[in-house]
């Protein structure tokens, strides 16, 4: 869909499917990252949740983008567990609320939805930038998407910049000392490891950029 200005219901479903496939492909990698500073289950849990989420999409009654996002969010809350379940569940539920009743969305909608999703994650997890969490990928990505939209960049260009910023944010978590979640128990020993949550968040936004610009890629992150 290169050159397009809007994202259809099918594109949204394709994003979710691509993210599920990416999580499956990177399951062991995410779990290995989590072994270093957490409890060795991030890839496993996200894979269980995303597989359950995509199984429900074909049965949804209407071509409502918001309803698709909400279905994913509810399913993740009910199947993932840990902190990732409520946090990723909130991400998709907020995306769904921001796009309720829509058959297609544009870059402004993505901007608004991402704002709402990040606000929801911050309310629940009470983390800030630099705490070595998923927000360290999401916050710079949101800022890059806002800046790109304001500068009049094409949808494809805006999404590419968003994914690029998420990747930089993810990589920048490596030297950080964790202040939230299980990695925080390690104190200084959490430095030197890339955050698994920031990594899956990068994969999520990268999947959006790839799907919505028609250039899917299975490249390993980090």
């Amino acid at each position, binding site marked *: 869909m290169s050159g397009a200005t809007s994202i259809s219901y099918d594109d949204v479903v394709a994003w979710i499917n691509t993210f599920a496939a990416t999580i499956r492909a990177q399951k062991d990698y995410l779990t290995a990252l989590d072994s270093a500073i957490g409890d060795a289950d991030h890839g496993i849990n996200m894979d269980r949740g995303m597989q359950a989420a995509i199984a429900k999409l074909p049965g949804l009654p209407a071509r409502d983008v918001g309803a698709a996002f909400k279905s994913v969010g509810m399913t993740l809350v009910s199947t993932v567990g840990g*902190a990732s379940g409520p946090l990723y569940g909130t991400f998709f539920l907020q995306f769904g609320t921001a796009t309720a009743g829509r058959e297609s969305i544009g870059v402004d909608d993505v901007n608004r939805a991402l704002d709402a999703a990040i606000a929801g994650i911050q309310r629940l997890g009470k983390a800030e930038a630099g705490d070595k969490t998923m927000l360290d990928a999401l916050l710079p990505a949101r800022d890059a998407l806002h800046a790109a939209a304001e500068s009049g960049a094409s949808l494809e260009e805006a999404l590419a910049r968003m994914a690029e910023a998420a990747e930089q944010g993810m990589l920048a978590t490596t030297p950080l000392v964790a202040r939230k979640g299980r990695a925080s128990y390690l104190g200084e020993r959490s430095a030197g490891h890339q955050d698994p949550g920031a990594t899956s968040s990068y994969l999520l936004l990268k999947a959006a950029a790839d799907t919505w610009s028609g250039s899917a890629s299975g490249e390993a992150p980090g």
Partner: protein
Amino acid sequence: MKKLINAPESAVDEELAGMVAAHGDLIRVIEPNVVVRVDAPRQGKVGVISGGGSGHEPMHGGYVGMGMLDAACPGAVFTSPVPDQMLAATTAVNGGAGVLHIVKNYTGDIMNFELAAEMARAEGIEVSSVVIADDVAVKDSLYTAGRRGVGGTVLAEKIVGAAAEAGADLATVTALCQKVQDNVRSMGMALTSCTVPAAGKPTFELGEDEMEIGIGIHGEPGRTRMKLATADEITEMLAMPILDDLPFRQGDSVLAFVNGMGGTPLMELYIVFNKLSQILKGRGVSIGRSFVGNWITSLEMAGCSITLLRLDDELTRFWDAPVKTPALRWGI
């Protein structure tokens, strides 16, 4: 990976089915994976539930029964359960007197229990929550998720369960649980790592001559890694931070709990208890009650934790009260 399982995906389901087959007189399992006391709900009795990742057996499912928990919500291995489970548990044990959630202090557990409590309240059930955070290995500061809930959880479940069985109301049961939390401290260590079935390899690597001090119950690495020491030295390393933290004082009476992480012989736990009793004597702290065994585990990890609870007459009385669960039974 060498484990006595059929498949990682079905391990928890098959474990629960086995528990029902063995202890069907005490527990039943309802959807979605909730262990419930067979006679729940009991009208007029406060319901007490807990939950957490699987892999810590007998906690929590083994503690469901008369005088302890009314329901337990087992998540995937080392993963907090989902809100649907806590909501189903809360509904199943609500006898009209409200339900207490005993929550171990982990980011995921807190979030999922909070979501479930909100949903239960929306259905008109009175819910209160107490967070257990007794692990002195973690600094309780703005820079961490706060202390982990470990061995003190087992003691809280026993004591609070006895009070609920005796007919205490929700406010009383909640305050009692908070009292346990305020008077209990723990710390643990590992000699070996453990393997999450779905991950297939050890969560961390420890050399033959190394140990991890300050380990959590999920194989999450601890405070420091160091050369292996003797049981006496290790007991000192765990007991001193606990004693200094509360602090426990001369003249105090404690419940002394030496816990195995799953792969430690009782012989070694008693060697630790022996040294612990000497340390306590040296500090003028008397052992009012003792508890030794594998009660909150981390799969097949070798290692131990020490928990001390400062006792008074009320806590002692509820600790001694009858209990009949798959894992713990006395006084009946």
